[in-house]
């Protein structure tokens, strides 16, 4: 019965979202507060109903209720409990339900915490959220219903795709959806502003925290997906420029741009129209990602649904929302008032530069992702656009941006002094250069490019530290005063510094792995050893092992360092899941500091040996540590409940030059 109640709750939520998408909108139009008042209870009820529905599906998974087709297709009674629960969203239908659950949760948050928003704005925002919810609920009910039943029920399920039977499934999709769907709030705010034809101060005050929350979650989601691919797929790669990865990277790039332009808008009331457009584009790119993953136009680890009717349905949603909002933008953008003016060399100017680079980079990735699809549609020819394209186009765009990052936070609002900022960054520049030279001469003389990359990474980290030091007045005031000021700095300053330093750490990891990685392949017999970047890897043999719903052959290795001391064991395995008749590779990974020794088993050789691929991945963990730092930076900034006003810097004519840097 609980399954059917879940189904009914979903249908009722759809009916309610139809009401939500019409009544408050009309209310705002004709000035009827009663109709606008529907928005709040409707949004909260939709969340309650969808949560009920999601809980019902989860119960069906936990109880292995194979009378539910979705459970039968994606679960197995012998599966560990964690994967029974994560399996709820490890498939197309369930993940759509999670997507909608998060959408409803965000709308309910706006309803609850948005009581200080102007009534019409709130009604319009919630109505747009209602439209998105209605479209996706209809999609789920019509073409991907997770509550379809089977009678009589089979006695055993078909099991979850073994690649997904991992803790990563518990973290990666929910975080990613929090990001994707979080941008829907920015989208709804933008569309509501266009419907009203005006953007007020409250609007700006609201959009930035939502962007920040969505961006932080998306950063975490992408990073988790990257780490998961790294250890699960057994190729040792962390980013493949796979179209589906790009689909998540695109909203990240435009979301990062949005984050920065929203700062300008909040503090200086400038860039309003551009921010509205970015908000629309960012959510559009999120929707595009959803379409690419679920329509079956791509084949990838992520592509679960290959049903063309679903593709057409999502394409229609895509056209309706993107086309509709852009048309609205075209008609109404002229009614929005443009914001204040600023000097090109200023904090605003720096943020505009950031936006230019980020949106161009996003456009590049978009072209690289869609080009093969376009070519195939037009000429039927299959081409693939891979890493070389992105390295050649994305790389040159991102390097100048990285170089410019430390300047941004040091520039004053409205009009800044580039020379003075450069002088302040001199120490950071010198230290980075010294580290790069040291790397070049001591660690690896081969690649000047690697040394340059490492310099860029440290430049970002020390630039962020410089920012903090200058803002707390180090060197200008006494140490205790500086410390007191440091502690008193607004949280958003720490957030900025942490996020920018995180970017540097990620760059460091990427550069180190790309330039200094060591790879070895050998056919090994038990007792054989090989040298991987100074570590001796000894193969102890293959041992069978029985898991709850799989069997595996474990290759056990012992590794010792240069001095010959044993450092530990690495277990790398080939698993076989009988329910799906599918093998997987489990990489064996040992961390040494921030570097890792990565071992993957290949095929058995005819003479009884086994192919072993081993990598030494120097500083690889920084890639993800940097992402976590960025995410934390976002979270800290989000906790800053202060209102932000960008106090403009005085013109030169003003008598006293400010003794302190302008505040956040």
């Amino acid at each position: 019965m609980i399954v059917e109640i879940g189904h009914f709750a979903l249908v009722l939520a759809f009916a309610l979202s139809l009401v939500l998408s019409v009544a408050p909108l009309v209310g705002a139009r004709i000035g009827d507060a009663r109709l606008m008042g529907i928005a709040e209870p409707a949004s909260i009820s939709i969340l309650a109903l969808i949560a009920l529905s999601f809980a019902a599906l989860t119960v069906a998974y936990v109880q292995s209720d194979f009378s539910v087709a979705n459970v039968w297709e994606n679960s197995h009674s012998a599966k560990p409990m964690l994967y029974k629960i994560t399996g709820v969203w490890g498939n197309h239908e369930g993940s759509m339900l999670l997507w909608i659950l998060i959408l409803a949760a965000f709308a309910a948050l706006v309803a609850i915490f948005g009581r200080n928003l102007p009534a019409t704005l709130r009604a319009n925002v919630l109505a747009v959220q209602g439209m998105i919810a209605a479209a996706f609920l209809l999609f789920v009910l019509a073409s991907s219903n997770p509550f379809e039943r089977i009678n009589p029920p089979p006695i055993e399920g078909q099991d979850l795709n073994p690649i997904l039977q991992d803790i990563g499934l518990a973290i990666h999709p929910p975080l990613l959806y929090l990001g994707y769907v979080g941008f829907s709030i920015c989208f709804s705010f933008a569309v509501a502003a266009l419907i009203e034809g005006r953007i007020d101060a409250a609007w700006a005050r609201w959009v930035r925290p939502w962007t920040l929350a969505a961006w932080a979650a998306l950063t975490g989601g992408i990073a988790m997906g990257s780490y998961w691919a790294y250890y699960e797929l057994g190729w040792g790669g962390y980013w493949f420029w796979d179209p589906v990865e790009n689909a998540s990277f695109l909203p990240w790039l435009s979301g990062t741009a949005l984050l920065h332009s929203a700062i300008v808008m909040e503090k200086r009331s400038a860039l309003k129209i551009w921010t509205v457009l970015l908000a629309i584009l960012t959510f559009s790119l999120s929707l595009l990602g959803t379409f690419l993953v679920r329509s079956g136009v791509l084949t990838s680890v992520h592509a679960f649904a290959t049903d063309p009717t679903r593709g057409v349905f999502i394409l229609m949603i895509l056209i309706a929302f993107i086309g509709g909002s852009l048309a609205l933008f075209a008609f109404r953008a002229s009614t929005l008032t443009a914001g204040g003016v600023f000097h090109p060399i200023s904090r605003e100017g720096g943020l505009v530069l950031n936006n230019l680079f980020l949106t161009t980079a996003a456009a590049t990735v978009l072209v690289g992702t869609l080009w093969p699809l376009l070519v195939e549609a037009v000429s039927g020819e299959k081409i693939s656009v891979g890493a070389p394209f992105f390295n050649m186009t994305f790389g040159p765009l991102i390097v100048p941006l990285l170089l410019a990052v430390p300047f941004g936070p040091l520039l004053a609002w409205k009009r800044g002094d580039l020379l003075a900022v450069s002088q302040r960054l001199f120490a950071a520049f010198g230290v980075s250069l010294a580290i790069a030279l040291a790397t070049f001469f001591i660690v690896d003389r081969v690649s000047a490019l690697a040394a340059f990359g490492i310099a860029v990474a440290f430049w970002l980290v020390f630039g962020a530290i410089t920012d903090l030091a200058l803002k707390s007045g180090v060197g200008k005031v006494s140490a205790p005063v500086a410390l007191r000021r440091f502690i008193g700095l607004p949280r958003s300053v720490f957030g900025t510094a942490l996020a920018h330093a995180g970017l540097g750490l990620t760059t460091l990891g990427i550069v180190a792995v790309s330039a200094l990685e060591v790879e070895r392949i050998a056919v090994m017999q038990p007792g054989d050893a090989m040298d991987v970047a100074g570590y001796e890897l000894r193969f102890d043999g293959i041992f069978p092992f029985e898991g709850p719903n799989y069997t595996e052959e474990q290759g056990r290795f012992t590794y010792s360092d240069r001095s010959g001391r044993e450092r530990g064991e690495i277990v790398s395995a080939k698993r076989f899941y009988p329910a799906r008749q599918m093998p997987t590779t489990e990489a064996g990974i040992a961390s040494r500091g921030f570097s890792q020794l990565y071992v993957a088993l290949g095929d058995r050789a005819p003479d009884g040996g086994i192919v072993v691929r081993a990598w030494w991945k120097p500083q690889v963990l920084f890639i993800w540590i940097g992402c976590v730092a960025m995410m934390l930076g976002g979270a800290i900034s989000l906790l800053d409940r202060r209102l932000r006003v960008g106090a403009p810097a005085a013109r030169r004519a003003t008598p006293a030059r400010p003794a302190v840097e302008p505040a956040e």
Partner: protein
Amino acid sequence: MVFWITAAALTFGVCLVLLAPLARGRTDAADSRVHEIEVYKDQLLEIERDMARGLITSGEAELARAEIGRKIIRLSDARDAGVVGGKPRAVGSWIGAIAILSLPLVSWGLYAATGSPGYPGQPLQARLQSDPTQASVDELIARAEAHLAANPDDARGWDVLAPIYMRLGRYGDAATAFASASRLDEPTAARLAGEGEALAASAGGQITADALERFERALALSPDDVRSRYFVALAADQAGNGEQARQMWQDMRADLPQESPWHGVIVAAIENEGTDASPGAEAEAIETMVAGLAARLEANANDVDGWQQLIRSYMVLERPQDAQAALDRARAAFGPGSPEAGHLVAYGLSLGLEVEQ
């Protein structure tokens, strides 16, 4: 019943929640600009705080204050525009009423079309614990399997399960079950012979080397094991030693007690040895098969392979009129012009049948 009550309560609850704001008579909404001015006032306070913290200088604070002050003045000038509210309007009430009414109509209508209201949940654990007499064979086997998964050392469990697997045609599982019983307890002649038979069955009736090895081990343990003797003889027959096979079967027949069920099997084996089934019997069997197939397709015409098989069978039996009639019926069933019909027409043409276009 509980389901319907819950569904009705949910619908009713949601309607009530929406009714609350509609029932409120008050329709005045605050001027949206009030919010904006509030934001600016907050910003002014923030500037004071920043100055107190020493984050900005008094000069900067002055500039910022002046900027915000200008914004407030600009807003106040445009103050009278954009006020919403007033008396409740009839159109609003109508829309509210339609909205509330649409909830039960849309939800119950859509659910009636897509849901399965009378179908209770089927949690696996409960199904496995329910009354065994009500359970399907599959469920019984699942129970036995669950029992064995929990107690994998129970050789007797495997003994019970193995013949059931054989009966259901799950020969691979049967072989594993017999082997498990042998491994856990001891290899008896019955277990070895059973495993051999399962291996042979999963090889489509061929006595493979593996299977033969099991039978021979069984005979070493118990030279009188009937099943193993029979299959060893069959293996000889399959290897082309018909004479030897016949001799072995005849020896067996002499040894068997009168009431043994194996008599019939052995007599049939001896009769069949070296001779194929008689032509008359074969034709009769084919006729029966074809008639059965035709009857099945009459009941369920949606089976391209079935039709193809039927048409071919009629041609083999040299009944082209029947083949022609079958093709016409199939075309009518799939609808002329459908891909299935096209496929069957092409097939018919390849056999020399005629098709009027």
